[in-house]
């Protein structure tokens, strides 16, 4: 296989793997930048995946090709609503943020499987018919070579994810909202004395994180798994969290990290077709993304500073 042929397999596959991670990591960026740890991303993805599939199954006949896109919206809303639980627990009730996140994860999967049993009378849903399919980007896909590699046979949500990452970057670094959001995560008391409503900012941030993680789950369910069951979301939330940290809590960094994870993941499956990689034992390829992440953290970006107030509830008057 020529190098271009290989890239034509790897790039779309990388994008496919990365897309749910990008959305979810961006959600995490909002939450964590505001000072709220969100280990519950996994659970929020579960909610997104579940609601998207349920919606998709019941609305496909009326909405047709638009179904998966509308389902993204539905998942966004569902994720946002579910994230309110995390917000209430951590912001208003001063719960340990990591622990609340763990509870979110357990609750989400328990609740969704319970509901699946209730609605469908069985352990997993049917397969959806209207999923995100392959897509050629108009115009761009006609560019020779580049078009073939990057813009042909890919998935539309991948480009949405990249666009959203850029948008999030602009929001966080160029708007008053972003400045305030980051100040709340660095030094909430300072923000408070500047008249910024810390509680409100954090609620907004956590809800946005739920919305984006919901989209991430929905993309996964509708572009990859095509149904919802106990194993649909199986660690992607944690991977997204890793991407966020790997990317130094920066929207574009998180996107880059997600793409890197996507590449490593896809190599572990597509690698068989690539001469050099074909001889590597599969387990090496399987653990590569995780090992590389650890090495990268230890080597290049070990100095990455988390938002200073990350993990601490803001209590007025306490130093």
């Amino acid at each position: 296989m020529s190098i271009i042929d290989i890239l034509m397999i790897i790039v779309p596959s990388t994008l496919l793997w990365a897309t749910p991670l990008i959305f979810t990591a961006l959600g995490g960026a909002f939450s964590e930048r505001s000072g709220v740890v969100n280990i519950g991303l996994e659970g929020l993805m579960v909610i997104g995946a579940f609601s998207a599939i349920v919606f998709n199954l019941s609305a496909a006949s009326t909405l047709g090709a638009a179904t998966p896109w509308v389902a993204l919206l539905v998942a966004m809303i569902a994720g946002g609503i579910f994230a309110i639980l995390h917000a209430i627990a951590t912001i208003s009730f001063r719960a340990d943020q990591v622990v609340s996140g763990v509870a979110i994860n357990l609750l989400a999967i328990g609740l969704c499987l319970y509901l699946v049993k209730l609605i469908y009378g069985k352990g997993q849903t049917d397969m959806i018919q209207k999923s995100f399919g392959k897509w050629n980007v108009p115009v761009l896909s006609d560019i020779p070579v580049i078009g073939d590699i990057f813009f042909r046979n890919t998935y539309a949500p991948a480009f949405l994810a990249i666009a959203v990452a850029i948008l999030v970057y602009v929001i966080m670094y160029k708007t008053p909202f972003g400045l305030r959001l980051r100040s709340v995560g660095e030094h909430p008391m300072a923000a408070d004395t500047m008249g910024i409503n810390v509680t409100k900012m954090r609620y907004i941030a956590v809800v946005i994180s739920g919305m984006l993680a919901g989209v991430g789950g929905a993309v996964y369910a509708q572009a990859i798994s095509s149904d919802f069951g106990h194993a649909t979301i199986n660690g992607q939330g944690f991977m997204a969290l890793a991407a966020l940290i790997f990317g130094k809590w920066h929207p574009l960094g998180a996107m880059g990290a997600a793409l890197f994870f996507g590449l490593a993941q896809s190599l572990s499956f597509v690698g068989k077709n690539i001469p050099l990689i074909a001889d590597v034992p599969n387990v090496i390829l399987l653990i590569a993304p995780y090992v590389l992440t650890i090495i990268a953290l230890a080597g290049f970006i070990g100095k990455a500073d988390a938002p200073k107030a990350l993990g601490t509830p803001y209590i007025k008057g306490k130093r």
Partner: protein
Amino acid sequence: SEKTGDSGNNEDTFSVAMVTDIGGVDDKSFNQSAWEGLQAFGAEHGLEKGIGGYEYLQSQGDQDYAPNLNKLAREKFDVIYGIGFLMQDAVNEIAQQQPESNFAIVDAVVDQPNVASITFKEHEGSFLVGVIAGLTTKTNKIGFVGGVEIPLIEKFETGFVAGVKAVNPNANVDVQYSGAFDKPEAGQSIANGMYSAGVDIIYHASGATGNGVFKEAKDLKVQDPERELYVIGVDKDQAPEGDVEINGEMKNVTLTSMVKRVDIAVQDLANKTKNGEFPGGELIEYGLDANGVSVAETQDNVSKEALDAVAEWTEKIKSGEITVPQTRDELASFSVN
């Protein structure tokens, strides 16, 4: 086992139950098939779902198999099925503890006097779909996607490869394992790689991982409706999984499926037991002869020529003229002439 056999004569009290592995009774695979068998048995004899009729328990992890089997034994079900090779040890253990109860294990062998073992000759069925694939391929590149690389799945692989080679020695089979039965994303990626490399037919024996193979095939089909590419399903008739709408027209990427009639086996064994003929300690192998494995009923995408060949090879296997290889070693020394 005598005692339970006796109680089987009483219409009202005969009850059957099964324990699923993590898949659940709607896994579109053998759990589901087994449950259909029990339901059919229930309908046949007018039983109700629940204690005293027919019932299932789903396991949420390996640790649940034993308690679930135990629970059903305590509820005095007359035959208790453990569905799937994962339950081998648990059935073995509980069968010893509950010598009064009758157990059955599907897809594995447990050597206990009160356990009936049910296995299938997957390699035979796989051979037949291999014949279809070998005669259908245009590119002479065929793919096989396995779940976990274990002897059971190896039977699918070697049978399939043997079938392909038997009718089309020029065809090449690319064999890959995803490492899991529940990773559709892996199936999708592997299928992506295979189809991109020119493969036009993929046989999957990988449970839910195969959903990804179907997804990839359908996505490619939508992209390029002219391209001929197929998936061969497993366990059940997976024609519905292959349905895809292209510009308002329904197409189907499922070439055929290798059907494993767990339902028939389960129902069959229940009836035997009810009649007091519980085959305790025995191994019952369902192959082509007993319709235990077969090519799926949906045959819209299969050519007449291929169907004829299937019939021909079925005879050869049944008659013992050829023995389908079950391992890679056997495959290496396998030849049809």
